[in-house]
């Protein structure tokens, strides 16, 4: 999200803002908004409609949908494909951030690399921004667990030899493959809804803290994009147009300018791509570029990637006051558990600057702006 606030507007109220975000956005184990009740019928609607469900319930506006991949709803989601267990995990976790590497980050535009595109995206130097990173939560994990069982049997049935059991699979056109795509669409729709709700609570929190209305705060969605999903898309292979199933795992769609699947106001810029870095360095806004269609099926990287395991990170953080270290750099971090903050220390990640430079120079996406964090909440 971009905003109508500047870096200094935020800095004056940073502590208060981070505290309020932490209260309003459920993030720890079992935390949940008391004002959110979800019965089975409503949950099924979430799985079919995605972010549109959230907008109909008053979370954000229909303009948001124009800036979400697939308008926040992958067609073909069939709730009958979702197990009782997945429904239960989903019910408990809709509208929650979750822990691990999930976060809400308030930052500012520290550097602009492409003035024209930044202007088209509504970004300018020193402007405050917000990034929300979360997904389908336990519902998605349960869908994965359930379908791994299906795929283990399917791999045997279709005589697919597996180098590792976790890579079990079925042909896309098989009943098992089609069943999975219907279930996956539900999980993606749950994730779109989850982010839309959290986006709404971020806006409400800013309204509370700054005592300003939406017209002044201008917390408009720049873009919302998936990074663990398979999509049916048309790509040119050996000069021929072919319908393919594109798997993006830890990768983000990055369609270039003039692609029919990106919003009309981004036709000239290319699809916005968000690359979160670690909480101590920075994040990036990029746009998709033509080379991505030629070389990576319209995809780019999703994040920095780890260099240290969780345990190494915790060992590296031993004896250090990590929260204090970040505070000295002007970054306030609040997490539900100390463990997840330590696991996510900046040293545990590759330098996102290096990663982004690689995709920029490879021509698969283009650097637009660098965002530096000021306040972060984590699960």
């Amino acid at each position: 999200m971009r905003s109508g606030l500047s870096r200094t507007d935020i800095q004056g109220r940073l502590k208060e803002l981070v505290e309020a975000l932490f209260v309003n956005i459920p993030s720890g184990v079992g935390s949940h908004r008391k004002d959110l009740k979800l019965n089975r019928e409503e949950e099924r609607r979430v799985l079919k409609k995605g972010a549109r469900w959230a907008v109909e319930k008053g979370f954000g506006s229909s303009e948001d949908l124009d800036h979400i991949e697939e308008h926040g709803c992958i067609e073909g989601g069939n709730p009958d494909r979702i197990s009782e267990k997945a429904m239960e995990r989903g019910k408990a976790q809709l509208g929650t951030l979750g822990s691990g590497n999930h976060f809400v980050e308030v930052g500012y535009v520290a550097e602009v690399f492409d003035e024209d595109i930044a202007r088209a995206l509504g970004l300018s130097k020193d402007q405050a921004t917000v990034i929300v990173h979360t997904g389908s939560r336990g519902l998605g994990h349960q869908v994965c667990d359930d379908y791994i069982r299906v795929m283990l049997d399917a791999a045997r049935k279709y005589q697919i030899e597996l180098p590792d059991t976790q890579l079990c699979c079925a042909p896309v056109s098989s009943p098992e493959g089609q069943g999975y795509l219907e279930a996956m669409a539900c999980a993606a729709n749950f994730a779109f809804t989850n982010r839309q709700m959290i986006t709404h609570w971020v806006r409400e929190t800013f309204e509370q803290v700054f005592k300003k209305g939406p017209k002044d705060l201008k917390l408009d969605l720049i873009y919302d994009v998936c990074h663990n999903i398979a999509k049916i898309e048309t790509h040119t292979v050996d000069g021929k147009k072919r319908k393919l199933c594109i798997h993006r795992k830890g990768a983000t769609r990055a369609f270039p300018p003039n692609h029919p699947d990106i919003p009309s106001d981004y036709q000239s810029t290319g699809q916005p791509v968000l690359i979160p870095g670690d909480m101590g360095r920075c994040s990036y806004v990029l746009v998709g570029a033509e080379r991505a269609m030629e070389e990576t099926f319209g995809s780019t990287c999703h994040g920095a990637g780890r260099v240290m395991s969780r345990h190494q990170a915790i060992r590296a953080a031993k004896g250090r006051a990590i929260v204090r270290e970040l505070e000295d750099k002007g970054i306030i971090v609040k997490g539900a558990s100390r463990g997840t903050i330590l696991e996510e220390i900046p040293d545990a990640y590759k330098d996102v600057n290096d990663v982004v430079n690689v995709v920029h120079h490879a021509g698969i996406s283009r650097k637009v702006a660098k965002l530096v964090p000021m306040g972060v909440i984590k699960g």
Partner: protein
Amino acid sequence: MSKPKLKTARRLTKRFEILDHTADIGVIVYGENLRALFENAGGAFFHLITDLRKVRRRIEKRIDIGGESLDRLMVDWLSELLYLHDVENLLFKDFRVESVGEDGLRAIAKGEPFQEGVHVIKTEVKAVTYHQIEVRQEKGRWRARVIFDL
């Protein structure tokens, strides 16, 4: 049968080791028999999630899993515990496996619901995976390898 507390350091034979992966985490679990192997796997799993010293045995859950290969049974067992952790916020510290084999698993897990201020979450486990899964007998004892998605 009484069961010693989960303290790897003070035991003569270790129950599990942590496997360090860059993006994920895994465990190698040992047991003198299959029942002990599955009990120790439960213990190793919750050792990753929380500080077990703070968890009390206040409630118990019966767990029944249908017949599968041992690999699948191990993933199903830990996935069931993860499901209970996710939906009912339960933390388990004691496991009693009554029977385990090709025809399924019956067990009782003891623990209590997560309580803010009392318990800590060290790591959130997203899923139990089949990646490099292994359950086998080796030099007269059982050994299993399980990798978790974090």
